């Protein structure tokens, strides 16, 4: 077993363990922490496949931003685990069917010829920057799907804002924009008074 294979199995073991802990741990914060570990290890495996841009991007986007917000929300939850587990046996058949369906679908997709690692030619020559290659592909061949994806994201963002926006508040909110531009002469009046003498 060469070193790369060893690293692959090591990372895969951590990944599977972390993924299992995400769904089995009782404390939601632990679940999120293990999800972060899973993303991190996933990045490691991608780096092993010479996809350094994807490896860094998953850490930058998911670990660095998305999971921070996730953790932010989960920390404030007050979850009663016993109540969550009440209907476990009722939902089990439906969940199991969905799970099996997903496994079958993934098996079908991964069995396709596009997902087979070509025996030779998979190793990139040194000096080929995979970040540059991805950028060139994204903005030439795949520019329409890429722009479409960004519009879908924008729509999602606008929808989230519309759903949560409840109009301007009638409270004593301060407006920092106005505050910053306040000048002393708008607020203070200096009076000149003659000195009183008796």
């Amino acid at each position: 077993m060469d070193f790369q294979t060893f690293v692959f199995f090591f990372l895969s073991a951590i990944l599977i363990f972390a993924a299992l802990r995400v769904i089995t741990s009782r404390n939601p914060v632990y679940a999120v922490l293990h999800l972060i570990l899973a993303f991190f290890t996933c990045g490691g495996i991608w780096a092993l496949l010479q996809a350094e841009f994807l490896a860094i991007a998953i850490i930058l986007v998911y670990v660095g931003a998305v999971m921070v917000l996730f953790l932010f929300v989960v920390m404030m939850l007050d979850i009663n685990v016993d109540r969550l587990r009440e209907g476990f046996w009722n939902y089990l058949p439906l969940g199991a069917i969905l799970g099996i369906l997903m496994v079958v679908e993934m098996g079908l997709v991964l069995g396709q010829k596009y997902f087979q690692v070509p025996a030779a030619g998979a190793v990139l020559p040194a000096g080929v920057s995979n970040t540059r290659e991805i950028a060139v592909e994204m903005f030439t061949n795949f520019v329409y799907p890429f722009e479409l994806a960004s519009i879908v994201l924008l729509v999602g963002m606008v929808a989230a804002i519309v759903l949560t926006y409840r109009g301007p508040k009638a409270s004593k909110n301060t407006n920092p924009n106005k505050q910053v531009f306040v000048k002393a002469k708008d607020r203070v009046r200096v009076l000149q008074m003659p000195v009183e003498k008796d």
Partner: protein
Amino acid sequence: MDAVMNLGQGVFGGVWPAVWTLIKIVLIVAPLMLGVAYLTWLERKVIGYMQVRIGPNRVGPWGLIQPIADGLKLLLKEIVVPSGANKAVFIIAPMLAIAPALAAWAVIPFNGTLVLANIDASLLYIMAITSIGVYGIILSGWASNSKYAFLGAMRSAAQMVSYEVAMGFSLICVLMVSNSLNLVEIVNGQAEGRFAGYGLGFLSWNWLPLLPMFLVYLISGTAELNRAPFDVAEGESEIVAGFHVEYSGMAFALFFLAEYANMILVATLTSILFLGGWLSPVGFLPDGMLWLFAKMFFVLVLFLWFRATFPRYRYDQLMRLGWKVFLPICLVWLVVVGVWMMSPLSIWK
């Protein structure tokens, strides 16, 4: 150098490359830790003089042994774990704070050849690693089971996520004009230009054509570091000491080390990305590592100067600055740089 390599090859045999890498890591981390210790000393001295005080002056001449004494004190103190705390996360959080602060140094070049790992996407790597640093703060706040710590953690998370956006955009401008993600190539790109031809290299560095981005990066960097005037996560007068209020001894010291190591990191990155790294400002002086250290020192003193000068930002003002001021500036300047590069007036060919 060859003699050392041959000797190592003879003594360690096949594992020599690994041992050699470890030696290089020690050669980077040890001076870094020493730098952190003396940065705290410098901070106390500089702020002392700015406030017409003397600063540390009892332990050793000019208080020079003060950081060592502080370190020793913190090492010997007991680490108290609060009874309601989540013990495992409480212990892991300081490690999560310091690990990214050290890991980022793996790709920092000190001159054209002296770099631990000269990887293609080093700028991306730095962005990814520094974005992990926030977990130490959030988890310490959560695990402490204390209101002040939790408030500090929440503030810090919101602040770091917002300023990372502006920071990322300013870095995108840098990589657009350098046409590379490699830090060595970014510095080498700054060595060329019309002014560099006249022997006035410092006018060819990125800070001048990207001046708004330079300022945005410097200010967002200060905010990412949780340094004054953006230190709402600690805010002594509001939430005691914020996220590390429950920490003592070496666990507290790790947060401290992480903050100052990150300060040196941001100073180095500012020097490399905008101030020409190890390039000499004028043509008749040779390039060299000393220039990089001089620029780092300049940026570090700026951070200390900020702290001694500005009052703390209020939380809503902080968010406004990040989202409503910096983000629009970044978006506009991104387009300006893009158009500039494609126009005949482009200075980056």
